[in-house]
């Protein structure tokens, strides 16, 4: 039990980078980017292939970061310069990446067992994952306070306004989606290192998991400030993995039910806060109505006397 919990936290840390990427597009840029399913695998494929070619794992991770970034930049270009609908640009890149990923991997499944690895010992996954996630969160936090970071946030918040102040919103979207997918690809490469293999289907459904993490995190911590939102996303990614691990322990469920469990978790994260809010409003409203009525009743009684 404790072992699977630890495994869930470790996996959560690796997937947190992907969730942070999804947060940048969905929440900061307000751009529904579906490239993620493709770029996650791209990261894994590049990381694995470079490592097999004898390149040090850390450099392979950097390679994954760059390739994911390029994929995101392509999506951004399709949307801004090609004037293609945002959802469609992501879908187009996702399907294009499917073939590209197969080309990079050379075959559907590549093992890196026995190769050099970022995670050399059992415990290193927790520490390295943790340090990476913390540094990425701190860097993003600082980045979103810079002039360029502010214009990125402004682009998602009110692009008409920010254009009137001279920010190039096309550039913000292209680079923002690029940064997002670079993080996603990093996450993919780390997962490949952790599983000691990469396959061309490992990214399927990633966007949904990323969104689930963002939504769970926001449901728990809220998103009032950027740092709070960033921490919420990381927390959401870890909690998603924990729920998932727990669900798998329920008798009758096994790993083929994973997508269904994911869907149920998301529905839960979306619906529970809404129900809670409306219940709270109802009860507060009822209480206040009674109070108001009571105070009116007192006045009347006073007047009649």
């Amino acid at each position, binding site marked *: 039990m404790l072992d699977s919990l630890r495994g869930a936290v470790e996996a959560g840390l690796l997937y947190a980078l992907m969730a942070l990427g999804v947060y940048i597009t969905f929440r900061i840029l307000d751009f529904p980017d579906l490239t993620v399913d493709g770029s996650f695998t791209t990261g894994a494929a590049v990381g694995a292939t470079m490592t097999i070619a004898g390149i040090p794992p850390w450099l392979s991770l950097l390679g994954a970061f760059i390739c994911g970034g390029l994929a995101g930049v392509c999506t951004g270009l399709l949307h801004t310069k090609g004037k293609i609908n945002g959802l469609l640009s992501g879908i187009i890149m996702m399907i294009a990446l499917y073939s590209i990923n197969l080309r990079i991997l050379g075959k559907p499944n590549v093992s890196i067992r026995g190769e050099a690895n970022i995670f050399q010992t059992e415990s290193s996954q927790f520490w390295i994952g943790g340090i990476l996630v913390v540094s990425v969160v701190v860097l993003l936090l600082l*980045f979103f*306070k*810079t*002039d*360029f*970071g*502010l*214009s990125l*946030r*402004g682009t998602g*918040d*009110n692009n*008409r*306004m*920010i*254009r*009137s*102040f*001279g*920010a*190039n*919103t096309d550039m913000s979207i292209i680079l923002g989606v690029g940064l997002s997918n670079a993080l996603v690809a990093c996450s993919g490469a780390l997962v490949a290192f952790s599983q000691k293999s990469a396959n061309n289907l490992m990214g399927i459904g990633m966007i949904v998991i990323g969104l689930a993490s963002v939504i769970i995190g926001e449901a728990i911590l809220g998103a009032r400030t950027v740092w709070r939102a960033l921490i919420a996303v990381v927390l959401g990614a870890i909690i998603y993995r924990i729920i998932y691990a727990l669900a798998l322990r329920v008798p009758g469920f096994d790993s083929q039910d994973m997508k269904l469990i994911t869907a149920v978790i998301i529905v839960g994260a979306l619906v529970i806060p809404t129900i809670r809010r409306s219940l709270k409003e109802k009860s507060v409203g009822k209480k206040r109505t009674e109070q108001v009525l009571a105070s009116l009743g007192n006045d009347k009684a006073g007047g009649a006397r």
Partner: protein
Amino acid sequence: MLKIESVSKLFNPGTVDEKIALLNGNLHLKAGDFVTVIGSNGAGKSTLMNIISGVMKPDAGKVWIDGYDVSLLPEHKRSRWIGRVFQDPMAGTAPRMTIEENLAIAYKRGKTRGLGFGVNSKIRSIFRQELSRLGIGLENRLGAKVGLLSGGERQALSLLMATFTRPQILLLDEHTAALDPARAELVTSLTETIVRELKLTTLMVTHNMEQAIRLGNRLIMMDKGKVILQVDESRKDHLTVEQLLGEFEAISGKKMADDRVVLG
């Protein structure tokens, strides 16, 4: 300072829905001019604003700012010269960002946005000082989300953001129309003060006749995509709303029709 030369703009050209928004429009603003623009519905006032700011490209004609031909420049490049306040109080500010973050975005008008921090203690004190000019206490709420401000406060902030970097040209597109009378009066008087103090060349669209006469040194009237009347400084001083409406009827042969028109 601002020159518009035989500018035309059609919507849906070549279709049954074709609509002439601007027809061979000419306008010349000298540095320091404060021109108010009035006109009936669909007269082309907003199109004129959009063409100057680069939101729309004209089908014919040229726009010059400060001696540069900017006709081909996209909106975000023209904004180096142009400050703009929209009618919708929600349009000029970013609601999920704080007051100081909004100001930081405005502060970088026309400059490259790099990886330096948008707000530091020196910039913050500039913001505080600028905000105190509005006199509505925003200087003590730098960290507040702009989405929490009222419409009037947001519009006052938009006005400050559009002007405090001293753009060459200020475009005001019915920027008090969506506010209640008291707030509208506040924003109008702020506009007057700021334009006078910073000597901004200003073009202001308004549906308030009284305001159009009271503010600024020149007035133009538009109808069906054309400038039909220009009133200069000497005549504008003793113009009345009745005279203005009379002029409109005499020239266009119809009554002024604007569902939101306020006679003052």
